[in-house]
């Protein structure tokens, strides 16, 4: 089983130096890319079927192809790696950022070449101190080796790159809020259209891709679209970093073929539930995805299949709920986080999320009323996709709406017993 993204990552908390990276085929993808013209690079990525690993699952090559190309287009264009990994339960980008920074940088240079960007930024979560060191050092090495700067590898392509450390807000992971933050403005999302590929950073065409997405790029260029498609168990190409947290025997992170089933993840890789705990449900793609339950264990974890099952692949990092943890308490914690992280721009998210969190808090404390469940259901409709300015609040409603569907009795017990039934 091939693990192109992670196979060379070391276990000693140090990252691959340029020398080490080159030894295992690093920057060969870039060399190949620079011999092609930009449109050909984009086409290869498009053919590979690579989908955005940040959660939305949009075709990466297609996104690149929307960037205006040619001589009389607005310049400079920008290319940005979204390293603001703050999805609850998600820690996949961290491994790549800390373990193999050159893989990201190579992917970014290739992407920049494909859209003819002049500047690129790594937008990094504030808390990722170790990753910040890795990226800084790798950028410096890349400059010294001529992979960045003027006339890269004699190709006449110029690209500068720098690291931007975010001040730490979940909303900065939303690509347009990220652009505002990078410009030094309030991290509010922007209206779409216009999309960033047309009017992005400083009003110029900009591509924002997730860190894991970009880590795939050097390999796609090096080994081809067909090879990439073959990595996967489904028709969506490549491998995926899957993770699991919760009361499983071996919480962790694994690079596996895209489309590995939920059951295999839970039972083989995570080692099954800890002794004395029973599986109750799982958020398959981080905090902002719908619960899946026992009946969904054989769902392949790819974008289409998880979608069909009523949830989202999201970041592919599972949060496992067991029978001894209070569902309402878990949701309260999650909704409190989302309410706190709302930027405050649109009404449903700004007002609806704190209201939701307060309702859950009241229910958890045994002060809930049966009507509160109707109000919670109202909130899930009120903050449905399309009703809000960006995807934050609809994402926040996903665990709640599915919990109301699968675990409604847990809520009712709280209300009837006037206390949390899990309380000791």
């Amino acid at each position, binding site marked *: 089983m091939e693990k192109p993204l992670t196979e060379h990552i070391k276990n000693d908390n140090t990252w691959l130096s340029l020398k080490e990276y080159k030894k295992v085929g690093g920057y060969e993808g870039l060399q190949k890319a620079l011999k092609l013209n930009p449109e050909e690079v984009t086409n290869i990525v498009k053919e590979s079927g690579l989908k955005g690993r940040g959660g939305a699952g949009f075709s990466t090559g297609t996104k690149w192809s929307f960037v205006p190309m040619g001589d009389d287009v607005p310049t400079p264009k920008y290319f940005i790696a979204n390293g603001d990994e703050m999805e609850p339960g998600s820690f996949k980008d961290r491994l790549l950022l800390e373990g193999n920074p050159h893989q990201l940088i190579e992917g970014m240079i290739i992407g920049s070449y494909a859209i003819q960007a002049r500047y690129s930024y790594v937008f990094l979560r504030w808390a990722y101190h170790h990753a910040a060191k890795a990226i800084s050092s790798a950028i410096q090495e890349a400059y010294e080796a001529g992979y960045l700067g003027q006339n890269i590898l004699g190709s006449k392509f110029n690209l500068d790159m720098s690291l931007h450390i975010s001040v730490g*807000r979940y909303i900065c992971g939303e690509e347009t809020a990220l*652009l505002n933050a990078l410009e030094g403005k*309030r991290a509010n999302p*922007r*209206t779409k*259209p*216009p999309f960033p590929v*047309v*009017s992005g950073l*400083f*009003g110029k065409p900009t591509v924002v891709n997730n860190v894991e997405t970009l880590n795939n790029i050097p390999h796609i260029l090096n080994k081809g679209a067909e090879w990439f498609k073959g990595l996967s168990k489904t028709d969506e190409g490549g491998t995926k970093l899957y993770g699991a947290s919760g009361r499983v025997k071996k919480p962790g992170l694994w690079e596996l073929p895209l489309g590995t089933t939920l059951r295999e993840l839970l039972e083989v890789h995570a080692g099954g539930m800890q002794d004395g705990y029973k599986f109750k449900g799982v958020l398959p793609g981080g905090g902002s995805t719908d619960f899946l339950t026992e009946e969904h264990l054989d769902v392949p974890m790819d974008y289409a299949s998880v979608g069909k099952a009523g949830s989202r692949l999201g970041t592919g990092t599972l949060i496992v709920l067991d029978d001894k943890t209070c569902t309402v308490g878990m949701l309260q914690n999650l909704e409190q986080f989302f*309410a*706190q*992280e*709302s*930027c*405050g*721009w*649109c*009404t*449903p998210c*700004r*007002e*609806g*999320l*704190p*209201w939701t969190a*307060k309702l859950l808090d*009241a229910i958890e404390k045994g002060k809930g009323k049966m*009507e509160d469940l109707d*109000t919670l259901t*109202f909130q899930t*409709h*009120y903050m*449905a996709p*399309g*009703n*809000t*300015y960006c995807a934050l609040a609809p994402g926040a409603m996903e665990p709640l709406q599915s919990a109301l569907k699968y675990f409604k009795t847990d809520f009712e017990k709280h209300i009837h017993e006037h206390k949390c039934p899990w309380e000791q």
Partner: protein
Amino acid sequence: MAKVVIDNKMYEVNGSKNMLEICLSLGLNLPYFCWHPELGSVGACRQCAVIKYKDKEDTKGKLVMACLEPVADNMRISLEADEAKQFRAGNVEALMTNHPHDCPVCDEGGECHLQDMTVMTGHNYRRYNFKKRTHTNQYLGPFINHEMNRCIQCYRCVRFYKDYAGGKDLDVFGAHDDLYFGRHEEGVLENEFSGNLLEVCPTGVFTDKTLRKHFTRKWDLTNAPSICHGCALGCNIIASERYGSIRRILSRYNGDVNGYFLCDRGRFGYEYVNSEKRIQTPLKKQDGTFSQLTREQVIQEINAITSGKKLIGIGSPKASLESNFLLRQWVGAENFYAGMSNSEGKLVQLVLEILKAGKVKTPSLNEVKEYDAVFILGEDVTNTAPMLALNLRQAAKNKPDQKAAALDIPDWNDEGVRELVQGAKGPFYIASAHITKLDEIATQTCQLHPDDIARLGYAVANKINGQLPVLDSDEGEETLSQNIAKAMLAAKKPLIVAGISLFNQSIIESAANVASALKEQGKDVGLVYIVPEVNSVGLTMIADQFLDDAFEKATQAENDTLIILENDLYQRMDKNSTDAFFENYKNNITLDYLDNKTTQQATYILPATTFAEGNGTVINNEGRAQRFYQVYSPDNDVKSSWKWLQAMIPNTTSSCQSFDEVIKDLVDAFPELKGIQEIAPSEHFREGTQKIPREPHRYSGRTAMHADTEVSEHQPPSDTDSALSFTMEGYAGIPPAALTPFYWSPGWNSVQAINKYQIEVGGALHGGNPGKRLFEQKENNKADYFENIPSQFSPKEGSWFLLPFYHILGSDELSAQSPAIKERVPAPYVALNDNDASKAGIEEGDIIDVLVKEVNQKLTVKLNTGLPEGTIGLPKGLTATAGIQFPFWTTFKKLTDE
């Protein structure tokens, strides 16, 4: 045009708009908060949700925000679909979770957009039963009260204040449900247009502090359509009264003038009307003291002293055309003087000639927003014509915004356009005598002596048309004039702005040359001149002699009687010569509103109306005639000057003339003023058989208002001069725009009811915007050019050229007497050139002695104003600097420690 289907009904609509604008323009009630016709759409509040259907077969549809939905042909939407209605009700419920239930004690109550929208969506039962978030409030200065708990976070305030008006000291702080809209710390809101926050805020966060001091609910106010008297732009206002005092000013929408907004001078400068210094009865001076007379007595006595005597009349650019005209009729044209100095009057005359010649277009105030390149010569626009500055700020965005159109980003998509252009402005050039506030949006600026500003103008004209005279300018000027000419030629619609504030004829002439040269190059050029006062243009049309002329001739006066109309001459001429002037006259009749130095010189004082108690016509800087109407009928002897004059003019028919008849005489005497008959319906106008009520139908307390003195209800005063009535009874629909005293529509109690008065939201009013331009551009009129190029200014050793500095809050005599404005008037100062000061060993804050017309004044020094070397500046029109006739050469000296 496009065809759209809204709730199964087909409409033909404007394809360049968004669906919210379409729905509102069609008269449909779709609630909204964050959208504003001038500020565009941002999609923040989510209130204007509708269901959009893919096609005829689609029955489910998708919830979208109408404000972000461009019109598309055959588009199908529904406002009435259950899902949309439920969402909108839920959204208001969410907004209301933190909104206090303090409507009964909130100043906004009864005219609150949030109240209206809440009722409109049907939300009435509260499910949220947790604590509300609370905030502390800030002191924001004398104009605006802050109550943050009421905020519904629509972001309109910061979008207006920062993005539209260029303010720096209001912002949004915090995040999620803990947002704070305010200053970084307590303090006065500095922007000149801060008062618009009151109307932009959909609820009671920002409310009128001056209204609060004598609070009245909207429905209890008597209102009239009026014209701001604060400067020459003639912004349209609604003035409102209760219990005999003016309570507040709101913007009255006029799509040809001020649009939705007002400046702070116009909005908060009304309180002088309620001043204790108001003259309430006729007064007669005997042995140095004034005693009251009755109306009949005073008329009789004045008839006696004026009969058969030569009369000298001094008019006023603050008074209406009608009042000035009747004074002129009484004293005779040869004895009538426009009450402004010759230096000012001659320049207004020149501007008037250029307007009349109509070689280039003079755009309306609102049209200024459409120009895409600007060149300002000499004016500190923010302080001499504030609302023009606000509109110039919008014009500065046009060229960069053209980029958005190229990417199919509609102009109403505020956020999309803003992120694309990233605050780019220009081309925008300013040549002024000192640093001005608009410099911050300029492409390039320079500070020059007025003569050199004119020279720059001539140089630019030469760069546009090489046949115009060449100047021997230095290299700096050469590149600057080159840049300006290039930018103006590259623009589609260049705009040239100049005025008379620096009292320099050459600036006016060179600006005309630049505009004419651009016109000859086929440009759709605009030329705006700023003049000082509300009726400067109107007065100059009926008078051709000025104060210096009057002062000169006064020495020949024998037994003549002087009549002064609404004019404190000490504001306009220096004290010594004004004193001397008055000494020539034994009898002096003054018509005025406030006690001042001139009324102190009078033999008889007649209590005149301000804009608030009388009708009149004024002509703005563009040549637009507009009518203001009496708000209320005071129960004292205060009368319009034209009514007093009618009563005093002997042996004429005019004594019983109505307002319309006065206008008829005026037009007969001055045919070029014919247009003023068309600016508003006549006094005989009726909607059906009804007059237009000044009071809303919910006006309360009428039977109780005078109960402390009399039990029976007073008969309301009758208005014989207009189609308006002083009651709540009358026509309930939308009256002609010129007669609209307030905005109200069922379900729309706030100022946003204006939507119902417009043909298309943000566009013209039903029946057309009121007012009439008297001069239009004349086609095929060959340009002729001015040729008197002044020579370059050279500083003199030991002598400095004195220039005026203008202040929006301070330089206007009347508004500066309003208590709220008074708090903001700057302390007197003297501005020096930094080099001149350092040579003289003077620093910022030092007190120096400045020689002003033979009088020494001790003033605090202000540096860093950008004044050119050899010049010196004083604030115009402050109490300490009143009557200074700029410009002249003067000296100053440093005060030693002794």
